[in-house]
């Protein structure tokens, strides 16, 4: 402690942090250790502050985990490194710690070899690779770490130019870390082979990995690399194209070798299928992008077996499926899993309503006892959870209730599917049954429930294969009989609740509960569904209780499903439907209902937002032109004149490789679009044949005339050729939403929504330039009614040159979205264009939102602005990205005037397709 005191004279902050760490980690420092720490840290501090700091942390780390001889080694190595410069010393002081803590001599040796090789190129080469080494060791991936060190040594021992060294020291760690942990070791081994042959191939290999090599199995990747290297030995260019999958042969070989199916190959199809089947927009989320808690749970439950579950927003699936020996079967399994999961939404599993279930059970007159004295749904067993979870919690052993419900619910879906989708059952259930068989062979968990699952959920007469004893068989058959009877009666999700009530006691007596695994981890997840729809659940509950005060009864589930369907809003008609749904239910189940017909006053649901916090901006001194526009006030039903101030700003261009990079990234698409749009461009003079009048005779027609006349037929009078000058008289303005919300990252694209919108703008400019259409590009954002900014990125009169490209580079997300004013200003600009056809294209990522400008007010004003544009013969088409289709967008833009591109990555291509379709002649 004395030494620490002395250290505090040298640097109080470091001394403080050392003290805290020692106490936190409960390390008892010997005198010798403290002395070493003091000596070394003060020495390092005399070299450089950061070095001293890192070294102090290093010693503490080592004192906690490593043997004394390793500490000695550390001292020796860091001293030596520090003498070569503080940066080198600091890097070693930091990254030697995990290596020495591991205690493996061979690892240390490899580490030092790699460091030596990199050091030859310069200290700059060390930072990123060493960080990666520490990261791999912290993830206990020592095997990969070994290979990575070998790669570093191998590569940096070669003759590299300065820029090559810089490039590899940055790229190599990034790529190796990006390999999937389960595959990293052998993928890195193949990278090592590639680099040994020729390090120029490394980047091509990374390209190949991104394009699909990463999905190959260990043997397949090895075979591919062997083939690639053989090819390279014979013909360098062909070999390079093969490895980067640019050659046809490379791509074909990949397909031949690939057995696993990556989710990325079917993701869009699955989302499309889910939309068609369920009417909901359910995206597909791979395991690697799942939220941490969900991912852990999925991994624990399913290990490396394929699985599926969903929460109404996402369908969760593994990144790849390797369950079968060929690609097609693995790919087919994804589809099968999506098919099975779609039933939950189509047949309303998560629309389970506890109140309805209780009424339903009561209506059937069964002796339902509520083990916990449950009286009604407001008992508050646990408010903050789904109705299904509340239902399970009614029972003493809720797990049994949950499993029974799962069994009956899956059975119900099977029965409905057998009638409605025989193909689905034929294709998917055999896979489920096979998987169930595998689970049964591996372990024997909760046998009775498992057999019941086979029998009811899968419709598989499992009794033949699994030979239960007579008593079990009898009980199983009895429950099965009850299930069949109930299904013949009514096939609601609530019927399954009735079945749980009827069978729980019997099952509880019969078994001692052990959880059982369901094939493909298909246990229902009402908790996840609830978490995603919590907002709607709360609104639903509020609306139900408000209506109850008015003596109107409704089911919460009906309110919630209507809210989900309409994106959180309810119309008068919706409420009527909800009320009548309750009445229909009551009537058809003989439940007494003596309410007064409701007065459908909706005032209680309107979201009034009377705040007025307009921000007053100082006058703009930049000299940018200012325009004042009116705004439609939905509450007043009138315009507020000169209400919004729009400043038209010029963007200062910046030099960056964004524009060029986008063209490179989309080079295939750009080429195709250019070709397609060249076809849209009319030839300057068009010859029209077979006209009744014109500039000269069409000789072919004259010939026909003579022949017809000779033959006594009536000849055609269309004998002339006419030449007309053709022009594509179109002016378009692309208006981009630059609100802050667009800065969100699109995980799979590794870019923000905003960057993808910019990419779309690049492609738009490039393509329209070819089509010869007059066009402008502008962005808008702002805060408050006095602060709307309109950024002119390209004017109609400007040509596509470097100035415009630089401006596109410079565009970045700003503040908020006051869309009406921006549309009015864009309309003003378009009005000035002399074309016959004028088109305003708006790209946005959602609904308008600004101070005092929300919801109905914002929607109505935007719609108004669009009407105004239309009245000036400007056609408006809006494209909304990155949100699910929402019926309120129809209110915003009009039914036929907008497109939703939920997967923003499709925007660059789709934007031009939409434009092409709009302007085809």
């Amino acid at each position, binding site marked *: 402690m004395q030494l620490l005191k002395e250290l505090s004279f040298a640097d109080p902050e470091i001394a403080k942090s050392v003290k805290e760490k020692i106490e936190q980690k409960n390390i008892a420092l010997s005198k010798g250790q403290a002395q070493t720490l003091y000596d070394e840290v003060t020495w390092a501090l005399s070299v450089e502050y950061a070095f001293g700091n890192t070294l102090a942390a290093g010693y503490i780390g080592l004192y906690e985990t490593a043997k004394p001889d390793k500490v000695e080694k550390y001292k020796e190595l860091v001293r030596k490194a520090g003498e070569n410069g503080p940066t080198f010393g600091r890097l070693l002081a930091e990254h030697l710690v995990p290596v020495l803590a591991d205690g493996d001599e061979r690892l240390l040796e490899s580490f030092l070899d790699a460091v030596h090789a990199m050091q030859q190129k310069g200290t700059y080469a060390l930072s990123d690779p060493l960080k990666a080494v520490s990261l791999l060791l912290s993830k206990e991936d020592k095997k990969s770490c070994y290979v990575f060190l070998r790669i570093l040594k191998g590569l940096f021992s070669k003759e590299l130019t300065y820029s090559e060294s810089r490039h590899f020291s940055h790229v190599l760690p990034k790529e190796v870390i990006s390999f999937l942990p389960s595959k990293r070791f052998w993928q890195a081994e193949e990278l090592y082979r590639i680099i040994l042959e020729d390090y120029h191939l490394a980047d091509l290999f990374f390209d190949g990995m991104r394009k699909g090599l990463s999905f190959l199995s260990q043997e397949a990747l090895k075979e591919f690399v062997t083939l690639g290297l053989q090819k390279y030995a014979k013909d360098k260019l062909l070999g390079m194209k093969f490895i980067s999958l640019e050659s046809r042969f490379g791509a074909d070989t990949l397909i031949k070798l690939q057995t696993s199916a990556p989710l990325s190959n079917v993701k869009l199809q699955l989302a*499309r*299928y889910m*939309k*068609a089947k369920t009417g909901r927009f359910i995206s597909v989320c791979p395991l690697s992008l799942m939220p941490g808690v969900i991912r852990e749970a999925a991994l624990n439950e399913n290990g490396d077996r394929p699985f599926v579950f969903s929460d109404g927003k996402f369908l969760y699936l593994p990144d790849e499926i390797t369950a079968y020996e060929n690609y097609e079967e693995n790919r087919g399994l994804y589809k099968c899993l999506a098919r099975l999961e779609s039933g939950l939404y189509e047949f309303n599993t998560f629309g389970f309503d506890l109140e309805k279930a209780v009424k339903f059970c009561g209506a059937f007159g069964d002796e339902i006892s509520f083990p916990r004295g449950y009286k009604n749904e407001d008992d508050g067993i646990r408010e903050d959870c789904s109705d299904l979870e509340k239902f399970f919690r009614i029972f003493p052993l809720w797990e049994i209730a949950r499993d029974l419900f799962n069994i009956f619910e899956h059975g119900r879906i099977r029965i409905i599917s057998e009638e409605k*989708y025989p193909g689905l059952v034929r294709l998917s259930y055999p896979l489920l049954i096979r998987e169930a068989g595998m689970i049964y062979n591996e372990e024997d968990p909760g046998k009775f429930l498992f057999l019941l699952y086979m029998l009811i959920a899968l419709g598989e007469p499992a009794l033949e294969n699994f030979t239960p004893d007579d008593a079990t068989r009898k009980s199983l058959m009895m429950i099965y009989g009850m299930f069949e009877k109930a299904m013949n009666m009514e096939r609601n999700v609530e019927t399954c609740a009735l079945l749980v009530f009827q069978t729980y006691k019997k099952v509880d007596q019969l078994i001692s509960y052990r959880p059982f695994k369901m094939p493909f981890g298909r246990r229902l997840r009402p908790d996840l569904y609830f978490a995603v729809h919590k907002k709607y659940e709360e609104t639903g509950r509020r609306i139900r209780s408000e209506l109850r005060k008015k003596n109107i009864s409704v089911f919460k589930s009906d309110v919630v499903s209507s809210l989900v369907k309409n994106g959180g809003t309810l119309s008068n008609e919706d409420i009527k439907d909800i009320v009548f749904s309750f009445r229909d239910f009551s009537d058809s189940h003989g439940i007494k209902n003596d309410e007064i017909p409701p007065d459908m006053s909706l005032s209680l649901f309107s979201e009034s937002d009377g705040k007025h916090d307009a921000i007053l901006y100082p006058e703009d001194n930049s000299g940018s032109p200012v325009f004042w526009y009116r705004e439609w006030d939905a509450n007043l039903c009138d315009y507020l004149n000169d209400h919004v101030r729009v400043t038209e700003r010029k963007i200062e261009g910046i030099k960056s490789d964004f524009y060029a990079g986008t063209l490179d990234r989309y080079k295939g698409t750009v080429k195709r679009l250019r070709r397609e749009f060249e076809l849209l461009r009319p030839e300057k003079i068009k010859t029209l044949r077979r006209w*009744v009048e014109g500039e000269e005779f069409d000789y072919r027609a004259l010939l026909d005339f003579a022949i017809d*006349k000779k033959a006594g037929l009536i000849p055609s*009078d269309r004998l002339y050729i006419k030449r007309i000058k053709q022009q594509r008289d179109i002016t378009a303005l692309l208006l981009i939403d630059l609100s802050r919300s667009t800065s969100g990252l699109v995980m799979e694209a590794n870019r923000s929504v905003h960057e993808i919108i910019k990419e779309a703008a690049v492609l738009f400019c490039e393509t329209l330039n070819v089509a010869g259409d007059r066009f402008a590009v502008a962005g808008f954002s702002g805060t408050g009614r006095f602060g709307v900014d309109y950024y002119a990125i390209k004017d109609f009169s400007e040509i596509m040159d470097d100035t415009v490209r630089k401006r596109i580079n410079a565009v970045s997300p700003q503040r908020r979205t006051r869309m009406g004013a921006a549309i009015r200003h864009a309309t003003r600009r378009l009005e000035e264009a002399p074309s016959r056809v004028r088109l305003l294209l708006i790209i946005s990522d959602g609904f308008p939102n600004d101070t005092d400008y929300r919801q109905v007010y914002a929607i109505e004003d935007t719609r108004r602005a669009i009407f105004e544009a239309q009245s000036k013969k400007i056609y408006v088409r809006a494209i909304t990205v990155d949100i699910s289709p929402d019926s309120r967008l129809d209110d915003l833009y009009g039914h036929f005037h907008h497109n939703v*591109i939920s997967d923003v990555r499709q925007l660059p291509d789709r934007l031009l397709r939409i434009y092409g379709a709009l302007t085809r*002649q």
Partner: protein
Amino acid sequence: MSHKTGMETAFNTIDQEPYYLATGNEIKMFQAAYDIRLPVMLKGPTGCGKTRFVEYMAHRLKRPLVTVSCHEDLFATDLVGRFLLKKDETVWMDGPLTIAVRKGAICYLDEIVEARKDSTVIIHSLTDYRRTLGIDKKGEMVSAHPDFMLVISYNPGYQSVLKDLKQSTRQRFVSIEFNYPEAEKEAEIVSHEGGVGKDEALKLVSLAQKIRSMREHGLTEGASTRLLIYAAQLIGRNIPFREACMSAICLPLTDDIKLLETLNDLIEDVF
């Protein structure tokens, strides 16, 4: 009449009642419009029964029906008529519109947006209080027969801005909106027209509804009732369900292989 202009015209009274199942108030509305001779515009997606409806109404009103399928090379003369050379003389030949105007038929201009703009203008004088058709070449002004009625069809989902219907044309018509019928009725139509059982028809309709919800996923229009009828007819000719649906519903809708795969998955579920 010669078909050299490429247009499809027909002129006849419809003796046998065409099958048509009403889905709303369209019959009443059309009847009322006819009673006071207002021109009618039928709006709706392709294949939802607009043409069949006009045929049905023509039969019901016992008027001959002249149908012109419009296309981009349809000239005003193709509608009004022209001089032809007969031996050494020129002879005037009425076009389908003039025939309908003179004889008091219902003239149905199908897909009017496809026609050239100058062709659509000539109907203007027929669609207001004047009810006349001017024939420039002859210098004649033909007053419409008291029973004459003009009907046009228009698909609002049509994509091109360049081919939108002008307001001056739109505002001359009473509009009747069509959409795909609700499931039960659509199944009845498919069953009747396609000659399949109600259950099979219901499955086809359920498939179509799913396909229609893919509008934002690359399909510009959903599967029409007409396509469902085609599929049903193929099924009636012993073509297996899957193949019939693929050929009659999916392949006509899109060329996109991935989209077709999803459509195929949906078919596989149903059959």
